[in-house]
């Protein structure tokens, strides 16, 4: 049997050219899952039988000469807050345990149409609320690089699945950093596309105006490939940008000659010294590759975290109100309807979800709206204006993805503010609706990986991937 390539593009090419079969590929990845999943707990559900059957179908298509997609036979792990037809979708919450959606998320059907094979549904912080995957109702996911440490979150399962070799690529969702931060902590590539580039139809909403679906991969090119497949207008999502998916893979190898890279001089403090050191090396590497470093200021960035923790919980309080025990999921019976709602929600939601529902309900309440939610929306506009001024001078901006490397279990779980600060560098992009990606760039404390974040203006995926590709090259050279 030929060696199984490590990348999605390599696998699709080898299967399409009949060097290997889709079944050989899927068996190899399922074997890796069998070997390590007990230690890692990346998945809420491994769909091994369906994956093998799907692989056999693709092999049959190839044998019969039927057309196959650009991701033919590529295994992919799907975050368990994305709806999969007839397959349990839990959001890692007891309140949805056992619920099987009657439809596929748009991204899931686009991946299937492209020939990708789902290997399972990955663990997350309940309803994507958290930065360590410790908030899952089904137990935490462990970092494959050091199982005493968290993988980050909320898409910790998807990041760990790629880092552990359970799949070459996976999908996550990013509301305040939930793709980029776990990518950084697990040493893989993670992309949050422009708000509206990828359809949210079938993504169980956390904060609708911030949520965006994106890929994890081991290479920048694979991340670009998956983004191409899932992006593009979808009539089922009103906030979907009405234009076709951009071509992005070619950008990855274009280099950065002549590009202007922004360095934020008033970046909020708090990053570990090793993280700052890697960031400085990244600037140096890009300069060496032909880019110019330009200083920019983003003065309102220091308010981003506060604004986020009003806007996101406010929307969440409304989005999660539908989990009432009436139509699907958990129901705890009680004497009357109102008591049934209360008992169901008390039993079904974890502490962090309850905390954010209460925060958000308060922020939207009569008499408090203007002081909290209204003011947060103003901060959101200020941040967008800051970015607009900065992007008049630069093509992309570089920051750390996370202020810290992967931390041990229990380190922050009892201190919400410490946990929230994990997302201080990732949140501003969500508020602005811009794209951003995390690229692994060396290691920090305890030998754990550091991620560098590339920020770009709306629909600036192409320049973002150019810089991401250059950083990947530089990191590969220095490792």
């Amino acid at each position: 049997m030929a060696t199984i390539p490590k990348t999605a593009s390599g696998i699709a090419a080898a299967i399409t050219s009949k060097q290997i079969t889709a079944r050989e590929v899927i068996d190899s990845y399922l074997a890796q899952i069998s070997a390590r999943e007990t230690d890692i707990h990346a998945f809420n559900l491994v769909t091994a039988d369906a994956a093998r059957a799907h692989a056999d179908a693709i092999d049959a298509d190839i044998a019969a000469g039927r057309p196959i997609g650009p991701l033919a036979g590529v295994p992919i792990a799907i975050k368990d807050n994305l709806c999969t037809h007839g397959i349990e979708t839990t959001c890692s919450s007891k309140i949805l345990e056992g619920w099987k959606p009657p439809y596929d998320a748009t991204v899931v059907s686009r991946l299937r149409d492209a020939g990708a094979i789902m290997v399972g549904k990955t663990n997350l912080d309940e309803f994507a609320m958290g930065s360590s995957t410790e908030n899952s109702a089904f137990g935490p996911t462990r970092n494959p690089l050091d199982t005493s440490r968290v993988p980050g979150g909320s898409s910790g399962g998807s990041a760990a699945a790629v880092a552990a070799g359970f799949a070459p690529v996976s999908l996550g969702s990013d509301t305040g950093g939930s793709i980029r931060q776990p990518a950084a902590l697990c040493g893989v590539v993670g992309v949050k596309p422009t708000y509206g580039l990828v359809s949210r139809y079938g993504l169980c909403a956390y904060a609708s105006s911030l949520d965006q679906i994106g890929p994890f991969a081991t290479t920048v090119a694979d991340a670009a490939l998956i983004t191409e497949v899932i992006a593009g207008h979808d009539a089922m999502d009103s906030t979907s940008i009405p234009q076709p998916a951009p071509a992005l893979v070619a950008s990855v190898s274009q280099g950065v000659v002549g590009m202007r890279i922004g360095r934020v001089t008033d970046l909020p403090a708090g990053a570990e010294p090793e993280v700052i050191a890697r960031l400085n090396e990244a600037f140096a590497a890009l300069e060496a590759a032909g880019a110019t470093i330009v200083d920019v200021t983003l003065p309102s960035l220091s308010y981003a975290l506060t604004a986020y923790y009003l806007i996101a919980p406010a929307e969440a309080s409304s989005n999660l109100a539908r989990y009432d025990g009436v139509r699907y999921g958990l129901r705890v019976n009680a004497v009357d309807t109102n008591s049934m709602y209360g008992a169901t929600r008390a039993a079904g939601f974890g502490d962090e979800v309850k905390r954010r529902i209460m925060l958000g309900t308060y922020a939207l309440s009569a008499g408090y709206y203007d002081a909290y939610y209204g003011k947060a929306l103003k901060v959101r506009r200020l941040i967008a204006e800051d970015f607009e001024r900065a992007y008049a001078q630069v093509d992309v901006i570089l920051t750390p993805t996370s202020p810290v490397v992967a931390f041990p279990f229990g380190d922050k779980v009892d201190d919400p503010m410490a946990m929230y600060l994990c997302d201080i560098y990732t949140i501003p992009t969500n508020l602005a609706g811009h794209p951003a990606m995390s690229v692994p760039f060396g290691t920090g404390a305890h030998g754990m990986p550091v991620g560098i974040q590339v920020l770009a203006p709306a629909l600036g995926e192409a320049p973002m991937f150019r810089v991401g590709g250059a950083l990947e090259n530089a990191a590969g050279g220095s490792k």
Partner: protein
Amino acid sequence: MTQDPLSSIIATDEQMLEGGWELIVGLEVHVELATKTKLFSGSPNRFGDEPNTNIDPVTLGLPGALPVLNKQAVELAMRIGIALNCDIQPCIFHRKNYFYPDMPKAYQISQYDIPLNIDGFLVLPSGTRVGVERAHLEEDTGKSTHVGGATGRIHGSDYSLIDFNRAGVPLVEIVSRPDIRTSEHAKEYVAELRAILEVIGASDAKMEEGSMRVDANVSVHKPGTLFGTRCEIKNVNSIRALGRAIDYEARRQIDVLDSGGSIRQETRHWDDAEGRTHTLRVKEDADDYRYFPEPDLVPLAPSAEWVQAVRDNLPMLPAARRTALSVLTGYDTQSEAVIVVVERGQHDYVQAVVDAGGDAVRALIYVQQGFADAGPVPAVPAADLAKLTVLERDAKLSATQAKTVLAELVEHGGGDAAAIAAAKGFEAMDTSTVEAMVDEAIAADPGAWAKYMAGDEKASGAIVGRVMKASQGKADGKIVTAIMQSRRS
């Protein structure tokens, strides 16, 4: 409803309630739009189907489902706005958050501070002008049926059934200004609104089926003083019930105030069988809806071209139709026949009868009297009715005979009026025959004749009745009366 402290609209003396109280009414009317599909999903918008068949992930508020705005609903909402003289403005949607079992998302997508239609008005047939504050788009809820228990409400019931077919059906909520001063005007407003909605094809506007739902905000005060505390009256299921509910509620409030009490702001339930309102919930229990902009939808900004196209394609409205019918028949725009025929949407039919050579006045009266349940397009061909009006106009048939033939036409959905008349043995009686019959009748009842001769017009009934009986209804009542008058003079 705006709490205007001092209104420029003051009831006339005749409109004032006893004791110097003035009634202040504002109406909130919900209408279901006659779209093919729901406001935010592709499921059919259809009344009367098997429960929970017109549903989908969006309707059920399943996790991950997203709303997509129905263009036809926007267009119908704009028609309503234009028909009510509103400004159409760029607008956004809000979420109105509250828990109820038939609310699948636990929020209703509605419009809040920036609705589609604002600042309109409606001129009633009587000439009264009622301001329209706003007419906004929102989605309907599902329908709950509470089984068991005494009240039919959720409290005390054994269990509840929910039909989500109605969930997500597009609604327009039309909010009037508190410009209404009598229950008659309230009824007139709703009747005129219903006629407009039907004419423009926005809704079938059936109060009995719930496709038009009216809530009344009622208060009383002394003119020149601040408006009184208002109560919102719900569960008003017909125009007649609306009038009764407002009259009852005004009486109740005046009684409370006259006996030194005060009105509590609350929502009250109209019980049509008992003829009274009951407290449903007081303001302190009101939900905090935590409105915020719906992040799953983008702002709605209809282009000037779109608005103009909707305006250009709007059919003639009831007010204009009444004017046209008045010109056609010579009847006043406020006459009952004109109002009723336009309300039923039958003015085009009257015009068609006239176009087919019919007599305008008789066409109007026939349609008013004989086509109450026939709808805007009666089954009787306009040409058939035209022939009947001509037969009567030309005195080939008496009014009574014509009425009999009309009933035949209605029953059979048309026919040749002349042939029906012939088959019934109806033929114009020559005047000399009628004169002879009148003389016989006078001879048979000299007492009645004497009274008639003395100027008692009512006494003519006995004589006319005898002639009709003798002629088996073939004599023309008008001719009989004319003969009697000539005998008297």
